C-alpha cells in the first residue's frame, strides 16, 4: 500500500509541476536559512571533548576588587594570578592540573636564507597533553621533571612540523624560539577542539596554538605574553617580579577531577587555600570560588555569539513563513483534487487510507525540500564564510548529524504543513463532489 501511495503521490506531484516546485522551493529556502544558522549555533555550542567534559573543571578564584560595583554581582575574574596558579600547581591536589597562557614567539629557521616568523605558542605544563587527550603523531608530551628542571622542550603542531621539518619525525631536533634553543619531544597529530575550550578568553573558535613550551621556562626567561591581562590594582613596584606577585590575572587553570567526591575535596582545598590567603591580606571579597566543568564554563562565558542566536531566531520564524506558504499551497492543490477524492471515497476508500495517502505526498514534498535545503544550507554556510572570513572558518562545516537534521526537519515541517490540508480533504463527503459531475 505504501508503495502505491508513493506512486500516487509522485503522479500528483507531477500533475502540477509548477505548484509542486513552488512548495519544494518554499520548504527548501526555509530549511536552508534555518539550518545555516542552526549549524553555526550547533558548532559554537559543540562539546569539544565529550568523553571527559564532565571531569575537567575550570578554576576561578575571586581575588578581585572589593570596591567594584556590587551590581556586577561580584563575579570572580575569568583567569587566575601567577601567585595562585603556582600555589595550586605546587599543591597538586587534583588528579591532573594545568596552568597555561597564550603567547607569541619568533621562530628562526635553521636555514639562514629563510626569514624568521611569528608562531602562536602556549606556555603550559606536562599534564596538558594527557588531560586534554591531545593526539600525537610522533613522540609525546614532556614529563613533570621537565617542568621542574626548566628543560627547554617543545611540542609542535602537525602544521608547524610540516612547515619547519617537512613533516618528518622531528623528535630530538632543535627549534630556535626568541633566540633560545628548544628540543622537540613530540609532534601533535591533527587536533581541532571546537570551541577551543581550554582558553576561551581569546577567540574561542580559533585553532590551537602551533607550539607548546613549559610554562616555567617562559616565566623564567620573561618571554612575552599575548593573551589578556587584567588588573584591579597596581603591582607593588616595577619589574617582572612585582608583576608576578601582583593581583593581575592572566593564567587559565584547569583541574581534572574524576568524580563528585574528588570535586568536593578540591573545592574544600580551594576554599581552605583562599581562607589562608585572606589571613595574608589578599582576597578582600567574600569567599567565592568556582569549579565549572567544560560545558558549564562554555555556557558561563556565553561563547555562542549573540548575533548567531538572533539570526537563528529570525531564520526559524522565516521557516514558519515558508510553512504557512506551503500549507496554503497544499490546501490549494488538494482542493483541486476533490473530484478524485470523492470518487475514491465512493469506491470504498476509508478516511484513514486517504489520510495516509496525502500525508505521504506531503512527506515526499518535504523530502524534496530537505534535499534541496541541504544544498542551500551548504551554499548559505559558504556565504557566511565569504562574509565573515577566517574568524568563522571552523564553524561552517556540516556534519552528518546536521544533514540528517535538515532532511528530518524538512519532512517534519512538510508533514505538519500537510496536516490541515489533508484533514480538510478527507472530510469531503463522497457524494458532494460527484453531484456536479
Amino acid at each position, binding site marked *: 500500500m505504501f508503495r502505491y501511495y508513493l506512486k500516487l503521490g509522485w503522479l500528483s506531484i507531477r500533475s502540477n509541476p509548477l*505548484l509542486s516546485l*513552488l512548495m519544494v522551493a*518554499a520548504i527548501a*529556502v*526555509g530549511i536552508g*536559512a534555518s539550518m545555516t544558522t542552526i549549524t553555526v549555533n550547533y558548532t559554537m555550542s559543540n562539546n569539544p571533548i565529550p568523553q571527559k567534559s564532565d571531569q575537567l573543571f575550570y578554576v576561578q578564584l575571586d581575588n578581585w576588587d572589593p*570596591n*567594584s*560595583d556590587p551590581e556586577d554581582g561580584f563575579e570572580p575574574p575569568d583567569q587566575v594570578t601567577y601567585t595562585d596558579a603556582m600555589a595550586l600547581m605546587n599543591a597538586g591536589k587534583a588528579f591532573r592540573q594545568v596552568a597555561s597562557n597564550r603567547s*607569541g*614567539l*619568533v621562530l*628562526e629557521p635553521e636555514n639562514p636564507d629563510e*626569514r*624568521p*616568523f*611569528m608562531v602562536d605558542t602556549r606556555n603550559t605544563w606536562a599534564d596538558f597533553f594527557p588531560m586534554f587527550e591531545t593526539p600525537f603523531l610522533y613522540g609525546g608530551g614532556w614529563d613533570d621533571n621537565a617542568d621542574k628542571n626548566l628543560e627547554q622542550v617543545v611540542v609542535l603542531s602537525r602544521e608547524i612540523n610540516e612547515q619547519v621539518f617537512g613533516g618528518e619525525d622531528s623528535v630530538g631536533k632543535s627549534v630556535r624560539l*626568541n*633566540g*633560545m634553543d628548544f628540543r622537540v619531544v613530540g609532534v601533535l597529530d591533527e587536533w581541532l577542539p571546537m570551541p577551543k575550550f581550554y582558553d576561551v578568553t581569546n577567540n574561542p573558535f580559533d585553532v590551537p596554538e602551533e607550539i607548546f613550551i613549559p610554562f616555567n621556562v617562559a616565566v623564567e626567561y620573561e618571554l*612575552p605574553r599575548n593573551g589578556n591581562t587584567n588588573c584591579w*590594582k*597596581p*603591582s607593588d*613596584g*616595577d*619589574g*617582572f617580579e*612585582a608583576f608576578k606577585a601582583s593581583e593581575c590575572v592572566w593564567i587559565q587553570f584547569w583541574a581534572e577531577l574524576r568524580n563528585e567526591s574528588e570535586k568536593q575535596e578540591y573545592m574544600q582545598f580551594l576554599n581552605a587555600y583562599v581562607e589562608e590567603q585572606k589571613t595574608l591580606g589578599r582576597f578582600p571579597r567574600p569567599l567565592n570560588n568556582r569549579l565549572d566543568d567544560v560545558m558549564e564554563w562554555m555556557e558561563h562565558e556565553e561563547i555562542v555569539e*549573540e*548575533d548567531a*542566536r*538572533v*539570526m537563528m*531566531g*529570525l*531564520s526559524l*520564524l*522565516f521557516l*514558519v*513563513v*515558508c510553512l*504557512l*506558504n506551503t*500549507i*496554503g*499551497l497544499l*490546501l*490549494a492543490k488538494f*482542493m*483541486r483534487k476533490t473530484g478524485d477524492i470523492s470518487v475514491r471515497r465512493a469506491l470504498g476508500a476509508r478516511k484513514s487510507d486517504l489520510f495516509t495517502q496525502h500525508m505521504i505526498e506531503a512527506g515526499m514534498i518535504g523530502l524534496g525540500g530537505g534535499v534541496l535545503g541541504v544544498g542551500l544550507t551548504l551554499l548559505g554556510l559558504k*556565504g*557566511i564564510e565569504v*562574509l*565573515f*572570513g577566517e*574568524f568563522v572558518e571552523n564553524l561552517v562545516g556540516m556534519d552528518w548529524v546536521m544533514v540528517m537534521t535538515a532532511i528530518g526537519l524538512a519532512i517534519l515541517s512538510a508533514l505538519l504543513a500537510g496536516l*490541515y490540508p489533508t484533514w*480538510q480533504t478527507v472530510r469531503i463527503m463522497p457524494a458532494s463532489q460527484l453531484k*456536479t459531475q
Partner: protein
Amino acid sequence: MMRNKTGAILIALQMAVTLAIMVNAISIIQERKTAMERPTGIDEPNIFFVSSNSFAPDFNEEVTIREDLAAIRSMPGVVNAIQSNSVPLLGGGWSMGLQTEPGAEIEGTGVAVYFVDEHALDTYDLELVAGENFSESDVGWRERSDTSWPDRTILTKAMAEAMFPDDWRSALGATVYINDDEPVTVIGIVDRMQAAWNGWSGVERTMLVPQHTLFGSTRYIIRTEPGMRDQLMPQVEEMLANSNKDRIVRNMQTMDETRERSYRGDSSMIKMLTFTVILLLLITSLGIVGLASFSVSRRTKQIGTRRALGASKGAIAQYFMLENLLISAAGVVIGAAMAIGLNMALVEAFDVDPGSLIILVPAAMLVLVVIGQLAVLGPARRAAKVPPAVATRTI
C-alpha cells in the same frame, strides 16, 4: 472571501510573521549602520601601520625605535609617524581607570590608553580643542612591567565630559588620578579619538600618554600625504626589514582595512539580514500569487456568472484587489503587534537597541500592503478575463 476562510487566514498570518521579521531585521540593520558610521576621529584614508617584533636577546629596542622613527619621518610623502601600542578599531589595547579624587575605594572612569609622543596629534590629524600638545621633553620610555605613570596627559572631549559632566572645559589643567592615587595633569583636550574596541560603550573615552613603549613588539603608525599611502607602504616595510635583521616586520595594514575587519561582523549581519528580508518578501508574494490564483480558478464559474449578470472586467479585478486589501490589512495589523512583541523579546534577551519602531512599523505595514496588491494584480487580471460564457458551461 468568507467561504475560503483558511486561505485568507493563512495569507494574513504569513504577512504578519513577515512583517514581524522585516521590522526587526531592519531595526537591527539600522542599529549596526549607525554604529559603523561613527567616526574614529583620525585621518583614516591616509594612515597605515606596521608592527615590529624583536627576537634577538641583545636587541636594543630604544635605539631601534629612535632610528626607525627618524627614518620613516624623513621619507618623502610621509606627513608624520609615531610609535604606539594600538590604533583605533584594532580590537586589542590597554585600558585604565581615571578618577577625580584619589583613593582605592573610588571607582574610576574607564579609559583607553595610547602611548604616543609629541607627533601624535599631527600623525592622527587630531584637533586640539583646548590646552596644548606634549613637548619633546615630556616623552619618556616605558618598560613592559613598569607601573608608574607620567604626570601629563591629553584626554578626548568625551573623556573630559565623562569626568567633568558640568563643564568639560574644566578638565583642562585639572589633576586626575590613575592607579588610585598617582596624580596626572590634563594639559590638552582633543576633539575626538576612538578606543581600540568598537563595541565598548565608552568608545570615545581615550587618553594619550607621553611614553615610548619597550614591550618587545611595537607598532609604527604612519600618515602620508593624500594619494601616497599605497606607494609608501612597501617602501616603509622594505626599509624597516633591511635596517635591522633582529626583528620581524609584519601585519602591515591600512586604517581602511582595520575598519573593514573591525566591523566585519556588523557589515555581514547587515548583508545577511537584507538578503533575508528580500527572500522573505519574495516567498510571501509568491504565496499570495499562488493562493489568489487558486481562489480565482475555484471561482471561475462564479466570476462567469457575475460577468454574465453584467459586472464589468474592472469590477471583477477590483473585487480581488479589495479582497486582498482586506486580508493584508488584517495581516499587517496582527503583524504590527507581533513585530513590537518580537522587538521587546529581542531587547529583553539580547542587548539589542530598541530602535525607532514608530516610523519603522507603519512604513513596513505600507510596504507589505503594496506588495500584496502587486502580487494579486496578475491573478486579478486573469479573473477579469474570464468570459461570461463560462457561466453557461457544465452547470
